[in-house]
């Protein structure tokens, strides 16, 4: 199977909505002033939001939420709102109806998730 590139641009208030949806209200994600006070450029994306975009790239290709069997990621660097995220997935192997894939999430030319691996159930033709 092939897993298409997924592009998404989180808007200015996405981190507030994701904080409410996920329960992670760490002020580095919702308060620009606080984030700058601890040396960040401003409020940053939740790593798990970016991971959810990597997951979505897989489930959209696999045909729904049941298609993702495993996802492991490493967070590297900060994602920010109002800049496009690109999720790129490479199929490494296919065995017994499962695709073993490698994924990267990039923003502003830098990988913010890398060394990510997923197992995706190959949809029936």
């Amino acid at each position, binding site marked *: 199977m092939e897993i298409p590139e997924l592009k*998404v641009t989180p808007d200015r208030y*996405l981190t507030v*909505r*994701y904080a*409410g*949806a*996920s*329960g*992670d209200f760490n002020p580095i994600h919702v308060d620009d002033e606080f984030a700058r006070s*601890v040396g960040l450029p401003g409020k940053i994306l939740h*790593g*798990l*939001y970016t*991971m*959810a*975009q990597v*997951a*979505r790239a897989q*489930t*959209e290709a696999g045909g*729904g*939420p*049941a298609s*993702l*069997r*495993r*996802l*492991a*990621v*490493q*967070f590297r660097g900060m994602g920010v709102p109002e800049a496009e995220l690109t999720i790129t997935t490479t199929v490494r192997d296919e065995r017994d109806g499962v695709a073993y894939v490698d994924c990267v999430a990039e923003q502003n030319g830098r990988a913010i998730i890398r060394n990510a691996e997923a197992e995706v159930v190959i949809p029936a033709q």
Partner: protein
Amino acid sequence: MPANTDIVGKTFPPAVYAVGREKIREFAHATGETSPLCLDLEAARAAGHADLVAPPMFAVVYCMPAMAVGLFDPEIGIDFARLVHGGQEFTWGELVVAGDEIATTVTLADVSERAGNGFFVFESRSVNQDGAEVSAGRWTNIVRGA
């Protein structure tokens, strides 16, 4: 900060999370979910599900109450001011649908120190009301050295 490795293996009592239909929708909207199974009740039922289906990463929602106990445990002593999320892994089993009650058990699986940073790895196991595993997680938290 020397890591206290004596507490590896500490397991916290299970925390139960009741999955709500609108919470699934809220999470689906916040993450850009497009599957009708996660958004449209009729579509979910037509596909044979009892209710709306949670996207895989909804695991972070039902694990949160159990994980918070571990992250805030005074014996483990994580310094939140220096905490960064290093890595995350999930494996998924049975689908989660609205109406499920998910019990999550968290264990401190590993504590180590590398280059002055503390690594605290938690493992979570979540089961539904029928005892079926819905997900297992491995949460790597890094506490940056001073």
